[in-house]
């Protein structure tokens, strides 16, 4: 028996050695995440949030959820599908399109811009007015996209998932209120942004050039003010006057060099999204739309040759909404996008000097600002031609004739090529350019109505129904035919 107990004792000692750390003192440390930090500098959040927001806006790699090339670029009849016209071209979209666009803008973009604002704010851990200002401008831009796409969206109570009093079911704000907030935020951003102030890194849009950020903030403010001008004339006029009367405090874009555009690089995944889709993934499903090609040909506009690439000899476009069997017969002859748009380093454009001039032209025409409509108009046209590096034909202005709202908006539409979402928003606001009658062979969903907005995400139905219902009641109904607030 003695021997047994000896063995037993030995066994127990060995075993006790195995579980000697049998107290739970070390558990907190053991459960501290060794993979992910609990705090991080804004310089690392900024490039992520900018890239994700811009990619989502400009392209998106995932089929059925590409806001621009499965939606806006087709609806604005810049492009058309030579196959699978039922993937957007015929106005039909899948839930992932409007679910994931919403989710990405809020959860990839906005929440990170918001985190930078908090962290770099006066009360934050790392105060820095320039990070704060940059993030605020970007936040306004993304919110303006959201509300222009869907209508009322959670704004004042949004992005509060981790605040002290968290909100998981945010309420929807009316577009009017959102616009007021955005316009006010842009003014604050312009005040915050300090040339010669603290430096910023990770600014992949302007590489830390604060003056350019100020210009973007004020130009964007003009865009939004102009958009709501017929609905809120007094306020909008005051904002435009404030900016234009004091260029020293409120600098705006003065040339194409100021354009807000993300300059992509050849390094994955920092390349242009259209490059990813059309070159890397080899999708050849897009051709130029007949509407766009015909318009450009009407004015002998040399920008067509810079934007597109003819498929043998003359330029031809495909009517939008053609059934596949017909659309594919154009494959061989229809013009496609030039490498200016499909290169890895092609820029994703947010706002240009040219667009600003058209905004001013419209504002001048409407009497919202003083100034010469024609001058603004011609500056806008010139900036666009410059952008593509082509000269304005001698007879160009003559063939356009008298400048009207329609003419301004038509040329703005041309200048906005690529910026499908902005063009779509301006079309929904003004009704310009007037789109040609549909091709008799084309078939469209949505009762043949060019979509007026995106439906709310199905996730909002399951996760935020009570608040969503209020928003739907306010706008009438949740479909792609309801007109939004700024519609003139």
């Amino acid at each position, binding site marked *: *028996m003695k021997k*047994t107990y000896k*063995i*037993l004792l030995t*066994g*127990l000692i060995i*075993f006790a050695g*195995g*579980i000697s750390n049998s107290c739970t003192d070390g*558990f*907190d440390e*053991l*459960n501290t995440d*060794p993979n*992910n930090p609990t*705090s991080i500098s804004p310089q690392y*959040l900024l*490039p*992520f*949030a900018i*890239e*994700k927001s811009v990619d989502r806006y400009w392209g998106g790699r995932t089929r059925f959820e590409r806001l621009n090339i499965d939606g806006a670029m087709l609806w604005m009849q810049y492009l058309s599908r030579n*196959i699978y016209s039922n993937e957007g071209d015929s106005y*039909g979209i899948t839930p*992932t399109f409007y679910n994931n666009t919403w*989710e990405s803008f809020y*959860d990839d973009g906005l*929440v*990170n811009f918001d*985190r930078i604002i908090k962290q770099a704010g006066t009360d934050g851990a790392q105060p820095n007015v320039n990070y704060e200002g940059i993030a605020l401008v970007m936040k306004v831009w993304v919110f303006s996209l959201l509300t222009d796409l869907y209508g009322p969206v*959670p704004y004042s109570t*949004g*992005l*509060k*998932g981790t605040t002290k009093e*968290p*909100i*998981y*079911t945010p309420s929807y704000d009316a577009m009017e209120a959102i616009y007021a907030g955005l316009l006010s935020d842009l003014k604050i951003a312009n005040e915050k942004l300090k040339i010669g102030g603290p430096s910023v*890194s*990770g600014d*992949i849009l302007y590489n830390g050039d604060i003056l350019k950020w100020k210009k973007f903030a004020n130009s964007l403010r003009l865009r939004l003010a102009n958009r709501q001008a017929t609905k809120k004339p007094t306020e909008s006029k005051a904002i435009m006057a404030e900016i234009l009367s004091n260029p020293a405090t409120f600098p705006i874009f003065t040339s194409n060099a100021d354009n807000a555009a993300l300059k992509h*690089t050849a*390094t*994955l995944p*920092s390349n242009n999204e259209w490059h990813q889709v059309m070159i890397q993934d*080899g999708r*050849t499903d897009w051709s130029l739309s007949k509407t766009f090609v015909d318009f450009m040909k009407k004015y002998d506009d040399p920008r067509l040759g810079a934007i597109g690439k003819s498929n043998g000899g003359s330029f031809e476009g495909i009517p939008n909404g053609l059934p*596949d*069997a*017909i659309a*594919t*017969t154009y*494959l*061989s*002859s229809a013009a496609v996008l030039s490498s200016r748009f499909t290169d890895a380093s092609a820029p994703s454009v947010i706002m240009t000097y040219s667009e600003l001039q058209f905004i001013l032209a419209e504002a001048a025409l409407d009497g919202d600002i003083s100034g010469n409509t024609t001058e603004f108009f011609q500056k806008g046209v010139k900036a666009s031609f410059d952008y593509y590096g082509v000269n304005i034909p001698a007879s160009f202005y003559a063939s356009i004739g008298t400048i009207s709202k329609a003419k301004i908006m038509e040329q703005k539409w041309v200048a906005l090529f690529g910026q499908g979402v902005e063009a779509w928003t301006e079309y929904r606001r003004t009704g310009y350019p007037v789109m040609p009658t549909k091709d008799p062979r084309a078939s469209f969903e949505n009762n043949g109505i060019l979509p007026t907005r995106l439906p709310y995400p*199905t996730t*909002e139905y*399951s996760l935020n*129904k009570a608040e969503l219902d209020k928003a739907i009641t306010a706008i009438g109904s949740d479909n792609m035919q309801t007109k939004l607030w700024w519609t003139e």
Partner: protein
Amino acid sequence: MTLFLFTVAFSMHAQTKSISGVVSSKEDGLIPGVSVLAKGTTNGTTTNAEGKFKIENVQPEDYLVFSAIGYATIELPVGNKTKFDVILSTDTKVLNEVVVTALGISREKKSLGFSQQEVKGESLTEARSANVANGLSGKIAGVQITSNGGPGSGSNIIIRGSSSVAGNNQPLIVIDGVPMQQSTSNQFGGGISEINPDNIKEMSVLKGPNAAALYGSRAANGVILITTKNGSGTKGIGIEYNANVTFERPFIKPDFQNTYGGGNGYRTWYSDGWSGVIGNDAADQYRAAYGSFVPGKTTGTAGTDESWGAPMDGRLTRQWWTGTDVAPLTPQPNNWNEFWDTGSSVTNSIALAGGNDLGSFRLSYAKLSQKGISSFNDYFRDNVSLNSNYNFGKFLTATFSGSYIKTSGNRNYQSGQQFIWAHRHISWDRLADWDSYTDTHIQRSVAGKLPDTDPPNWQHTYFTNPFYMNEMLPTTNDKNRILGNVALNFKLTDDLKLMLRSGTDFWGDTRINIANFERIRNGNQTPGRYSEEVLNSQETNHDFLLTYDKMLTSDFSFLAQVGGAQRLNSYKRNYTYVGELIVDGLYNLSNSNPSQNVAESRIEKSEVQSLYSSFQFGYLNALFLDITARNDWSSTLPSEDRSYFYPSVSASAVFTDLMNLQSNILTFGKVRASWAQVGNDANPYQLAQTFRSGGSWNGSAAQYYENTTIANSSLKPEITTGIEAGLDLRFFRNKLGLDITYYNQTTENQILGVEISKASGYGQRILNAGKITNKGLELTLSGTPIDLPSGFKWDISVNYARNRNEVIELAEGLETFTLQERRGLVSLAKIGEPYGTLYGIGFKRTDAGQVIYENGLPITETTPQVLGSVQPKWMGGINNTFSYKRLVINALIDARIGGSFYDEGTATGRWTGQYAETAIGREEGVIGEGVMNVGTAESPQYVSNDVIIPGNVFYGRNNPRRYHEVGIFDGTFVKLREVSIGWRVPETILSRAKIQSAKISLVGRNVLMLFSNHPHVDPEVDAYGGNSQGFTYGQLPSSRSLGFNLSLGF
């Protein structure tokens, strides 16, 4: 396989004689059909109708074994007797069946207060699946197994329904007392799929929390206890050899249309694989086939990956393989068969076992080589195991059990679109031989760029030749696993025992996925790309158990156990994606352009400490009471809630013994009831909000983002509470048995990543929320309907299980929880509905359920609605064994009734014109079955729809991405799951070859589909595994396997 021993027979030349006799019992008089066998030989007979027998060639040293169902087997020495008058007594031994239960304790089955079912090793090895788990299907009530057919693939095992909303629903797998880590990956398997079936002595399934309170948290979903063979009971040296060879073909062939070829607009023409313009050189050929040709305009159709092309009437067209020639466009009704290879599985296993009074050992080696039905897919598994124990005197036994498992193979093909986005006129045999057409195959050549270099294929717009992909772009892995444990068992006194044990399970896996080869497509060059993922995972358990087992009086027994355990888990993942190889085909991380690389890594560590005890009281060996208690401390919970306690109570009463109810009809009766709780902790690192690495901009500016899952610093453990009651009845001296179990279990405080409005800035928050109940009934009926004196016997066992699952609550204000989403169709946990309710866009219907059409097309509902549920109504199996002398035939029917799934593949295949139904009315147009409204919107008046719609437009409504309802199919199936025909080779043949025993079996799995509502695929299919059941899109089809098994004992 039964262990056959080689015994040295010294009596080979001894004198033999003939013996006769009669067999009877007190209760039943003369017994017919009693087996009489000379022990250790195959020399035997059975008693005739008068209970008489006669047996020749018996030696005086022999023992005669008398056995019959319902009676105790007896052995009598022959000696110099020639006449036997044998009296058998009613068997009680069957009732005293010993089972291995929690903590590896062997207990009499009748003492259990909860339900437990076993499967013997041999029933897993004959009609085998390389993954042992699949062998449980249909054999155990309430166990649902879903698997895909790929080599080395994993299986999803669910016992008594899903209880966790978002967490693990897989049972705990315990091998010889020590847990084995499980992976739910269908593609790579891992865990139970790596076990060598030939090593398994027995598998026990402990269902629900009641049976498993002592295994802790992970046992809430049940436990599968695997006991491996350890050589004990072997006298001398024994050698087992088993060979198993099976061949596989796809089980269910879809019903294709063979009228129209690929393409669109009734045209089929290959130009350059991209619907490119057809050159003038083909003008005459094209005109001959289609009449008109517009130079510079008319295009090919290969870019359209659908089958709305020309009738396959033999017209001459250019095809991918014809080059500048044309060939008749002909149907390829066999192209499904051409695409799939005949798969094979070859297993060879050998074991050496030995034992004596001091101990035993068993050394085994098995090699499995599997070749998939998809080309170049394979799986290899080597298992080496050693089990041994040694007695150091009376007081100490040391045991060691360990395995080394090496697995590897190419698991590239998991699903494909070869029959979804496809051209019906494609011969896959010809495509498999693509190399022969490299020179004739016409590729696209973009002006100013290099011509395309893709391997020949039927098109190039979307697809690369799948044979080439399987071969040149494999997904391989190389995995090494070591698991085992050492234990010391002390016998301190006659009543007191102590066990000390340490076990570990470690695996390291290197997965290489080749994503691209250097090529030019549409004029664009892309480089070679691949990823390398290195995973290391380890779980170590140390435990002790003190057991006190004593008969307190002759009526009272007492068993007490106190134990403790420490469990340590660690996991490490390193992943590198190489976006640009410098030299293509050389897969080394340094052979890369660093700016195109993506690196990821993750570490996880956690620890759980536990103390537990169990007490069992027995009275008259007929009334039992069990009490267990356990406390866990987990590192993954906040300090204030890290300790949690959970108890269980169970009782059983053998009322036939207690109340003397035994009769000729009712042999045995037991009631049992139990109540139990199991606590569960969280995954690590969910308590604090973190930022995540998001790669970099331009390979230089590092990116981080805020985690969109909101952490929770006050998590609590989740608790599953279950009650169970059961009845175990045996009739006619065990010739008929019935076991009924009712259970009701509730899992509360579930740790969920609850989805929230994305406008909050976040996707989900970690919460203690959610309550799911599972109520169910399990029934097992077993019996021997026929047992003839001639030796013919029929055993049958029937099992039935129904589970009703309901989501009772989720987080405050939350109605639904998304389990899986695809194309906007979601599988939800929705309050008041079963887990896995399918929710999506459906068609508008009348109150009577008819689809409402407008302009010939069904009207879609604008808001999502319930389209089905993945939960089956019930499941069951019928296992039949017919034996006649040396022949044993076994047939297992397995059924799953009800439950739906989202089969995006089948619906898409209709949309793209693949299936037989889409050939109907193509040229004339189609009238959809349903009604249309001829009244007003306010007062509708429905008449039968009579609007004719072009075929491709009508079938286009089968787009499951937008009209989810078209992808919902019934998951019901009834299958002849297993058939085996076994024959024991007569000894007279074997003795010359010095072989002691041999059995040859013909085996088949998935032999016949007896019933299914699905027109095209086997409804037993699952794309994602885990909690995301109910989805499929072109998954590798299940396979039918046929083969043979040979087992030899030396």
